[in-house]
């Protein structure tokens, strides 16, 4: 809300420096967003919180300021007004609860008495309100001053009497700004005999608005219940000065006084005929709220030691009156402008505001006894640190991206879209982290990088039962023509697999299996799916070459993505003392069919040698010279040991022969 500095000083009848005024207002919760100059004046832009509808006016701000500074403040402007002609329309409040009070007045024969006051125009300009018609300008000025929105109709366009009612089925209204709104039954309208003439508390209808040609005017000033106005304008995608005020709550004792104030300004400027003010009020007119509270309630919440008199006097400054006292129980009456006060805690905040938050004590907390458990967050951070130690830089990408990016990779299935994206490049939640990391790669290549190793820990989303899953993804890209003088690291599938094996070892995750990948994003013959027992937890490998161009790249990269939630959290368990007896080793070299996998060979070794076997380690795979076509040579070392004795040559020979015969029978391997 933009307000002129001069209007505030006028209302508080004092002239504090603008800095100290703003500082004081800030300290009571009225935040200043910006200060700008307008001629010799200043415009202060306030960032009002939605609870403080009462501050949505110059007088509202002044009232709160004066309460804080313990200065006298009078919100009532003495307006001497008496109507001369008779108001000749009937007003029917059909929506009794929604609009329990309505005032209207007729104006005609407008003739300028003196120059239209400049301060009104300047006030409107500062607030960013367009000047439309002198009478509209005056009611808008009074709204800015008092907080009461009013509306001026062209009376000649109103057919018959006026009713305040809810919209009928399929009713429409064209509002100011030429917007045509299809109303629903919960929209409150002001209507004549034929049709709605205003969207109550929000905007007047275009067909009944004033223009230069208007001869006879009707001004409305009413009380609309906040919960009827709330959210209605927003539903149609707009807001008005009126809707913002009414949905927060406009002082229910203000509508007549504000109208009188507007009329007295009109009379000051014009020779004019004004009718009596027609006011209709019904039994639903709000009553002032009562709140019970004790001194102890206040002190218990604030940690203070305030006396009853102190609390009473603070609240009195805010026009919150003590009306009943029963031992410790104090009953306060909430003034008609404070819609935000309804429970004890609200009054406690009022006390705190006036005392000053900075003057409230600081109290050491008592320890809390709760069951403490290791959080998932620690696990996630450990993984992140592990990745940085393996040379990966952490990136953080937006969770949303262009749906096209998913479509390009055929991973848009089951994706979740945003109904109201910021723009189309951020319209869908990512189903995989790959498009994000690939985009990071393209971005960095364009900025001259030819090596990149990055990772991200973030969620992927899909319309499954889970909807969101925390994933760890990593990418390595190497296009360096000249490596460091002493380094010849080959970044291939096995490099990335090795890192993942390290990761699983670091976090004691066992029962991991690697199978030829079914993941369409990856190279069908040079990538693996990763299983934990029987559960697919991720994939690793080279990007499928068919996507390279689509991703704006010239060269493939290595990639992995795994589900973090599937990883077991295995703490270090029982430690086993190593055997005191020596370990025996034998090396083997076999010629074997090229299609036999290492996994098959390893299984065969474990099945063949059942006694004493500790581990096998492959140290060579070769399929070149001296090896028949379709065959390969593999060499591995097997280790045996016992924790009961030193193994004899006989023991070892027996096991070694079992391996040789097993390899031959099961896999057709020939010892070289």
């Amino acid at each position: 809300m933009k307000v002129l500095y001069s209007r505030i000083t006028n209302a508080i009848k004092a002239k504090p420096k603008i800095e100290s005024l703003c500082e004081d207002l800030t300290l009571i919760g009225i935040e200043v967003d910006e200060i700008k100059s307008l001629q010799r004046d200043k415009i202060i832009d306030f960032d009002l919180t939605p609870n403080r509808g009462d501050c949505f006016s110059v007088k509202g701000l002044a009232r709160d300021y004066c309460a804080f500074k313990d200065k006298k403040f009078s919100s009532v402007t003495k307006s001497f007004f008496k109507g001369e002609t008779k108001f000749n329309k009937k007003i029917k409040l059909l929506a009794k609860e929604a609009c329990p009070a309505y005032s209207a007045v007729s104006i005609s024969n407008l003739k300028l008495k003196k120059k239209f006051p400049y301060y009104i125009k300047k006030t409107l300009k500062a607030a960013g309100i367009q000047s439309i018609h002198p009478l509209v300008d005056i009611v808008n000025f009074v709204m800015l001053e008092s907080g009461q929105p009013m509306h001026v109709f062209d009376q000649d366009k109103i057919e018959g009497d006026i009713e305040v009612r809810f919209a009928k089925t399929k009713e429409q209204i064209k509002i100011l700004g030429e917007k045509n709104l299809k109303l629903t039954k919960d929209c409150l309208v002001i209507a004549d005999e034929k049709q709605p003439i205003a969207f109550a508390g929000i905007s007047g209808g275009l067909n009944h608005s004033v223009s230069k040609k208007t001869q006879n005017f009707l001004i409305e000033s009413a009380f609309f219940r906040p919960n009827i106005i709330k959210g209605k304008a927003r539903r149609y995608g707009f807001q008005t000065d009126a809707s913002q005020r009414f949905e927060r709550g406009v002082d229910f004792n203000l509508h007549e006084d504000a109208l009188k104030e507007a009329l007295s300004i009109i009379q000051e400027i014009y020779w004019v005929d004004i009718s009596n003010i027609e006011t209709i009020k019904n039994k639903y007119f709000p009553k002032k709220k009562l709140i019970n509270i004790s001194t102890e309630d206040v002190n218990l919440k604030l940690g203070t030691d305030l006396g009853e008199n102190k609390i009473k006097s603070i609240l009195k400054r805010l026009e919150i009156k003590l009306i009943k006292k029963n031992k410790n129980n104090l009953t306060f009456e909430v003034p008609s402008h404070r819609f935000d006060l309804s429970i004890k805690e609200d009054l406690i905040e009022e006390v705190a505001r006036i005392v000053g938050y900075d003057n409230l004590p600081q109290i050491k907390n008592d320890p809390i006894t709760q069951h403490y458990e290791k959080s998932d967050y620690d696990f996630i951070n450990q993984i992140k640190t592990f990745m940085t130690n393996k040379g990966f830089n952490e990136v953080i990408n937006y969770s949303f991206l262009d749906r096209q990016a998913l479509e390009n990779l055929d991973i848009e299935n089951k994706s979740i879209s945003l109904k109201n994206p910021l723009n189309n490049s951020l319209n869908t939640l990512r189903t995989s982290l790959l498009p994000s990391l690939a985009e990071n790669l393209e971005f960095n290549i364009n900025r001259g990088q030819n090596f990149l190793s990055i990772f991200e820990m973030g969620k992927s989303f899909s319309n499954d039962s889970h909807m969101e899953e925390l994933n760890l993804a990593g990418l390595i890209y190497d296009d360096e023509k000249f490596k460091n003088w002493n380094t010849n690291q080959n970044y291939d599938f096995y490099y990335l697999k090795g890192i993942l094996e390290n990761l699983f070892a670091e976090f004691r995750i066992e029962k991991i299996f690697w199978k030829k990948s079914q993941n369409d994003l990856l190279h069908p013959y040079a990538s693996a799916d990763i299983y934990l027992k029987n559960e697919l937890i991720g994939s690793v490998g080279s990007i499928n070459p068919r996507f390279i161009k689509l991703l704006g790249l010239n060269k493939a990269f290595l990639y992995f993505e795994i589900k973090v939630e599937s990883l077991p959290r295995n703490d270090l368990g029982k430690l086993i003392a190593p055997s005191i007896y020596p370990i025996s080793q034998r090396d083997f070299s076999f010629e074997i069919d090229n299609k036999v996998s290492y996994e098959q060979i390893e299984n065969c070794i474990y099945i063949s040698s059942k006694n004493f076997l500790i581990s096998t380690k492959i140290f060579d795979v070769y399929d070149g010279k001296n090896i028949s076509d379709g065959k390969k040579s593999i060499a591995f070392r097997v280790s045996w040991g016992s924790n009961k004795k030193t193994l004899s040559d006989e023991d070892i020979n027996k096991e070694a022969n079992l391996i040789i015969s097993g390899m031959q029978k099961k896999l057709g391997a020939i010892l070289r």
Partner: protein
Amino acid sequence: MDLDALKANLKKDFQEIVSQDELNQLKVKYLGKKGRITELSKNIKNLPSEERPIFGKKIGELRSLYEDLLNSVQEKIELQIINESLEKDRIDVTLPGSFKSQGKLHPLTITTKKITDFFSSKGYLIEDGPEIESDYYNFDALNIPKDHPARDMHDTFYLDNGNLLRTHTSPVQIRSIEKRGAPLKIICPGKVYRSDADKTHTPMFHQIEGLVIDENINFGHLKNEIMTFIDFFFGLDTKVRFRPSYFPFTEPSAEVDILDKKSKNWLEIMGCGLVHPNVIDMAGLNPKKFSGFAFGMGIERMAKLSYEIEDMRSLFSNDIKFLSQ
């Protein structure tokens, strides 16, 4: 040759030795089949029996002298050999080491960790919640009913499956109370989303939220916790102010500002307050028995202040030159 002369020769010979070869030759000269000590000891059988023990003893002394000299010279020669070979191992220590890339954590991760470490050490549990939320947890349960003007403060992204992207980490408060009951002391970092983008806003950002629920929690406790944290994060001489604000889920509510030493401006760093009784009630606890405080801050802002970042968007550009610092 008599024993004394032999002894003198032995010492002299050893002094002149410079190589392993020469040392080997000396061994032949003295202890070989026809070596001098060997020859001499053969004489023992020609001596009268009463002289034999004395002579034997002398021969023994001679042998042990030989051993001592041999050991010391052997050590000297080995050292000499090592010293000579070292020269061949000469390298240029100014050449760079073998390349191993070292990654860095994202500045937001580092900032989050700094904050969670502090609160963890004070006994807070670190909690997490979903990023896709329901209207109920994001708004209703936090005392923000439908059509509440406060929903305007949250430019919410709605999803085609009827849910929304959480606009704050506060839903975790409700989920944690429901899960763990009271007393409760939690801190929840996480991603949040609002449809807003300019130099100081990104449509996705990070928040961290703290919640303490117990009997008789008051505003003084909240102030103390926040002040201790600010001392830790921004330093002991940081000027702080608390001012009234509005959040539907706290009452009273406050914003916390710190004074920027350079610009002399107050910078808003977090929102906080005593948990609104409606929220405690909605989460299933008795608001007459339990009270609590909550606080929340934007991690980007904290990172911005820590690392003097000009443009918030650079935190999400993922430029490796920025990240690898």
